[in-house]
């Protein structure tokens, strides 16, 4: 029955093939156009280029930091929601989804308005005489993390919630009936069962974090340049498609390696909320 209707996905597949796979391949092929050897030589040079290495390191470090923060903030929220009766969850979910309906750019500029020297936070603190000079809140890795966590948090909550909601309350209750304290029941029953959701959220956020562009460009300082900004410079300002492509290959390879490592420990399907 399922087999017979599999043609239903054909239009979507065709669309993705034409609109995504083909252009991506053309882009990635760019450095190898002249010859395969020269392409690999260029890739080798790009890998050892100190400035590229630093930007890659910043990119991975930032993605890691925001992933950890968003998951730490999201886990208790997702836990709370998953223990609520399902008819009450809707309005909370609406609140969680709400930021996703606002443009990422608007939200990033809102952070500038809040965090800048003459911004809401500094002027409030100064008028309350708590500080005499504004605190530098903007243009550092901290402001980048704040902005990115805010954007990624809904994804963290929703991914973890979808796994947690499938964990029967009865299991923890049984543990408690058998003498476990609520804390013990959580650590031994609930947490292990929620791990697929936790790891899926980590991977999803990390990969999304790697590709951030506007937020670090606007909220970060000079050391916070992420690979997205570098790729944009190569294309828009220099018209250097080959370097942009090499950086994209490096980013893509890192993402594929991560997915591979993840698949050794957990099922990739966990990344998709619906498949629980």
């Amino acid at each position, binding site marked *: 029955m399922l087999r017979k209707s599999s043609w239903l996905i054909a239009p979507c597949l065709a669309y993705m093939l034409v609109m995504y796979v083909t252009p991506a391949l053309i882009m990635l092929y760019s450095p190898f156009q002249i010859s395969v050897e020269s392409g690999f030589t260029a890739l080798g040079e790009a890998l050892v*280029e*100190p*400035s590229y290495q*630093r*930007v890659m390191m*910043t990119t991975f470090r930032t993605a890691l930091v925001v992933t950890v923060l968003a998951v730490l903030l999201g886990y208790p929220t997702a836990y709370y929601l998953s223990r609520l009766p399902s008819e009450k969850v809707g309005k909370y979910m609406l609140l969680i989804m709400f930021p996703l309906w606002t443009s990422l*750019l608007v939200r990033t500029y809102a952070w500038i308005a809040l965090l*800048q*020297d*003459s*911004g809401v936070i500094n002027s409030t603190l100064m008028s309350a005489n708590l500080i005499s000079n504004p605190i*530098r809140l*903007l*243009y550092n890795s901290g402001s980048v993390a704040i902005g990115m966590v805010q954007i990624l948090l809904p994804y963290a909550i929703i991914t973890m919630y979808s796994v947690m909601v499938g964990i029967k309350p009865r299991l923890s209750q049984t543990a408690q009936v058998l003498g476990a304290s609520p804390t013990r029941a959580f650590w031994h029953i609930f947490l292990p069962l929620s791990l697929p959701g936790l790891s899926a959220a980590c991977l999803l956020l990390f990969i999304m974090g790697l590709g951030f562009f*506007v937020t670090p*460009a*606007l909220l*970060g*300082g*000079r*050391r916070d*340049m992420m690979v997205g*900004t*570098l790729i*944009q*410079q*190569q*294309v*828009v*300002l*220099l*018209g*250097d*498609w080959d370097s942009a492509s090499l950086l994209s290959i490096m980013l893509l390879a890192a993402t594929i390696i991560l997915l591979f490592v993840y698949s050794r420990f957990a099922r990739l399907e966990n990344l998709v909320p619906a498949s629980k």
Partner: protein
Amino acid sequence: MKLFTKQVKGSITLSALIAGAAGALLLPATSAAAQETVVVADAGGAQAEALAAALYEPFEKESGIKVIADHTTAIGKAQAMSRSGNVVWDVFITGDTDVALATQNDILMPIDWNVVPKEGLSPEVAQTYAAPSSRYALVMTYNTNLIKDPPKSWAEWWDTTKYNCPRVMRNVPIDNLEAAVLSSGVPVDKVYPVDLKLAYEQLDKIQPKVVTFWDSGAQSVQLIADGSACLGTAWTSRVTAAEKAGQPVARVWNQAIVHQDYFTVMKGAKNPKAAMQLIAFAMRPEVQAKIASRLGTLPANPKAQDLIEPASLKYQPKPEDLSKTMLSNIGWWSTNMADAYKKYSGWLTK
């Protein structure tokens, strides 16, 4: 990077055109005879507004040719179009460095100087592949609330004892390397070839004071206006827009680094005739004067200078200001661009 693109009055955007085309397909009965069009790529922001009012609208009225503006001028996009063989832009309005790159890449069509009047233009700017738009500059900026005695040179801009406050600079090497060399006391006529060792020594000195490196023109004046920095750098058109909006931002003309904007036509453009007509229209002194009046730039045609609106003269450099500026050397940049960018982003992330 253009973060915000604004729909400009009187010109319709590409997406509107696509929507219109879709509508026309659905309602064939309402479609009129094919109207001649010309697609123009401009830089968006203040420039796009000035061009819409001073060039696109009057040109449409006079010629009956519809102007479609795309506010994402970028050499990368021009190259991509050229590679794909589907050249959407006809006129590509861009800065001198992009013109040098585009000429090297052979993606431009020669200007038809039989259609475009050469009269009054100096030979350096009336090029084979480019007709001059206006001249702008990268200037020192300052917050007028925080700084009462603005710096008179890059050396003073660099002086952290005299101005012990945060700075902002652009995140690419163009103009920053020149400013760095000038800050060490090198005279304006000895800047090129840029002494890279000296430039980076100077950049190292100022780096701890730089709060951030701006990426878009909007940011450059915003950071000064909101007091995140007291001294900065910005393009003159952005400073003019900020001044007109009453923001506490002002410029210093001394040692400004002057650039030339150009009109070019893409090789493979679908409406080359209309493109040349538009550029010919743009060479008229009254059109150039209107654009320059709005942006505080300098028109390429000297005749246009006499037609500048009196209220706009204060945004323009006076002859004595101009004598203190320097011209960006595009020849040096076009051969050193890729290396300079790599080295600069290496320095930036250090």
